[in-house]
């Protein structure tokens, strides 16, 4: 079975060299004429009980990276080691490569890996009652039955701030924030170790967003959960994340502890992105770095560093060589040729 690597400190998920290319086909014979390199050699890890934020402009590959790790998409290359005791005979935890698991094993591992989606309106089946939605994962895994199931669903609903009476209702009877809570209750139902949250608060109003973020933080400390938190709102990501990875055109530009990344960025893209965030302070004097042009096309990326056409620090080497993703300071990773010498501004 799975290739085993040593269990290191408290890393729960260790993704290495992940690639996901979508083929572009044309003509009647659907000949492959190229690839959308949606995720192109990405390496990151998540520790137990922590939140890793994943940010970047739309289309940079955040959703694809998440979906590939949890095997909703088949990876083009790479490994994703997950720390689990599900497959060992002696009950010990081991690092298992998710990409080596067969169908049965994937089904089993889904108990420990769960998801929450952006759109609480479209991600819930409108014809299923709250009870059906929340209990479905337990039914699939044959976990509980009858009154015990009902009890579990009620306690999950109460845990996310909904009420017992809500159990027989349907999604359309709820507000956006309540629907997101239903999604969270469902995600919690199998007692996961890690939850992939894809833009979970992007569609919510600020007061509901704050309630939801607080709920996610409470659940994390109660159950020692890890989160991969995908979002495009940089302030939300900073707030909720212990560490943050910034993606640009299928690659990770920079990854570091939240404060280090926001206050002392090492990658010019991070610096520019931070400077663009409108600050909720009318006295703030913004020195905005306007990035020229658009995000590169992942089916036809530029040479060298993918960010070079928009980077104000680009030199010759940036146009020709791919910068290495390296640990420049402890726990601070960056892929920029000039990271050592540049003095960048944080927020």
């Amino acid at each position, binding site marked *: 079975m799975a290739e085993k690597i040593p269990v290191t400190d408290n890393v729960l998920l260790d993704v290495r060299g992940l690639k996901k290319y979508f083929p572009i086909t044309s003509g009647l014979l659907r000949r492959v004429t190229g690839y959308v390199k949606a995720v192109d050699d990405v390496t990151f890890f998540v520790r137990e009980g922590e939140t890793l934020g994943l940010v970047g*402009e*739309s*289309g940079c590959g955040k959703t694809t990276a998440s979906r590939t790790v949890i095997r909703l998409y088949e990876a083009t290359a790479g490994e994703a080691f997950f720390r689990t005791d599900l497959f060992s005979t002696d009950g010990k935890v081991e690092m298992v490569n998710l990409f080596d698991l067969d169908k049965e094993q994937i089904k089993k591992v889904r108990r420990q890996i769960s998801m929450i989606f952006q759109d609480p309106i479209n991600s819930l089946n409108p014809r299923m009652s709250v009870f059906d939605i929340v209990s479905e994962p337990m039914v699939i895994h044959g976990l509980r039955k009858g009154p015990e199931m009902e009890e579990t669903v009620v306690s999950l609903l109460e845990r996310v701030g909904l009420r017992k009476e809500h159990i027989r209702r349907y999604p359309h009877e709820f*507000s956006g*924030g*309540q629907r997101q809570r239903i999604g969270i209750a469902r995600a919690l139902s199998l007692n996961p170790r890690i939850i992939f949250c894809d833009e979970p608060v992007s569609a919510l*109003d*600020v*007061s*509901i*967003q*704050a*309630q939801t*973020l*607080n709920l996610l*933080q409470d659940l994390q400390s109660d159950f020692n959960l890890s989160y991969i938190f995908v979002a*495009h709102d*940089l*302030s*939300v990501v*900073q*707030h*909720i994340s212990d560490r943050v990875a910034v993606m640009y055109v299928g690659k990770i530009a920079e990854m570091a502890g*939240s*404060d280090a990344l*926001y*206050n002392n960025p090492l990658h010019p893209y991070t610096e*520019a*992105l*931070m400077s*663009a*965030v*409108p*600050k*909720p*302070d*009318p*006295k*703030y004097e*913004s020195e*905005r770095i*306007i*990035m020229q*042009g*658009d*995000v590169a096309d992942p089916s036809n990326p530029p040479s060298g560093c993918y960010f070079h056409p928009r980077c104000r620090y680009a030199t010759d080497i940036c146009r020709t060589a791919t910068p290495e993703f390296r640990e420049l300071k402890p726990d601070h990773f960056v892929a920029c040729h000039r990271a050592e010498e540049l003095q960048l501004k*944080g*927020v």
Partner: protein
Amino acid sequence: MAEPLLEIKDVHVEFEVRDGIVHAVDGVSYTVNRGETIGIIGESGCGKSVTAKAAMQMLPKPGKVSQGEIIYHRRSKFDPSKPQEVVNITQLDPDGELIRHIRGGEFAMIFQEPMSSLTPVYTTGTLIGEALALHRWVPVTVGEQMSNKIMQYRHVTKEESREIAIEMLQKVGIPKPHERVDAYPHQLSGGQRQRVMIAIALSCEPFMLIADEPTTALDVSIEAQILDLMRELQQSVEMSIMFITHNLGVVAEMAKEIVVMYMGKQVEKADTVKVFYEPKHPYTRALLQSIPKVGRRTSERLASIKGMVPDPFHLPSGCVFHPRCPSFMPGKCDVIKPKYIEVEPDHWVRCLLYEDV
């Protein structure tokens, strides 16, 4: 001196639906000054868009203005020295000629969902050209009298229209504008469609831009470009902006003055710095505390507003915010409806904390 362009005076908008009457806008008053930006904030459903649509006399059915008026101080697009006309928008025939001139040419509106508002069978160039043909005029000198030129105005030509379209596409940050001018909406990304809509709205150099969540669906880098473009245009053509958003960062950056709405009511209005530094209404305060601030990681938890927005058919008694209010005063807030009062010059609040009751 601030010169009013649009005065919204105690406007009420009702929707009569099966279950009863929804008071979507319940006594809103503010003035949009020439060349200035007013920010309208509040959570979804509080009546921001309905107010804006009332100002364009384009309320969806069965909505109607049941009380109040909307006064437009109309200046000639050609001759600023001509005396202004006073137009009561709420009295205009919604399909009449005057409002059609105003809409698009003098007031432009950018909505949140770009796909539904762009006709799919026209290229971006045609879409911009259509707006230009209706609303943009080119001055021509037809004669000279002493030192005064005698001017007439003509429509833009096809060639000019294409040139303006390309220039606008470039201004809103669309890459390869020479090619994109011939693209159809479905060939563009969501962010690009939104920018095309902004290009259409701005191409006619309107007196007022109603921007309803214009950048909500865009990435911050594009948002930054669009906000800069709006400010640039505002300076060059003295455009007013009614900026509707729930993004407090965007409003802090753009607006001179802010109106805060809750359940159809205007709960606070003041200069932007005042709203952010000395908010008076408990709802405004709670809203400001509930957002994470980039760069400043202070507390572990966000201060959230408890509960949810109430059902419009079962509005709370007294102050509509009382069930969620951290400063709730039993026996007062659930009984008495607060009045809208000026607590200091140009700072208006609707809250019993500031009334002697």
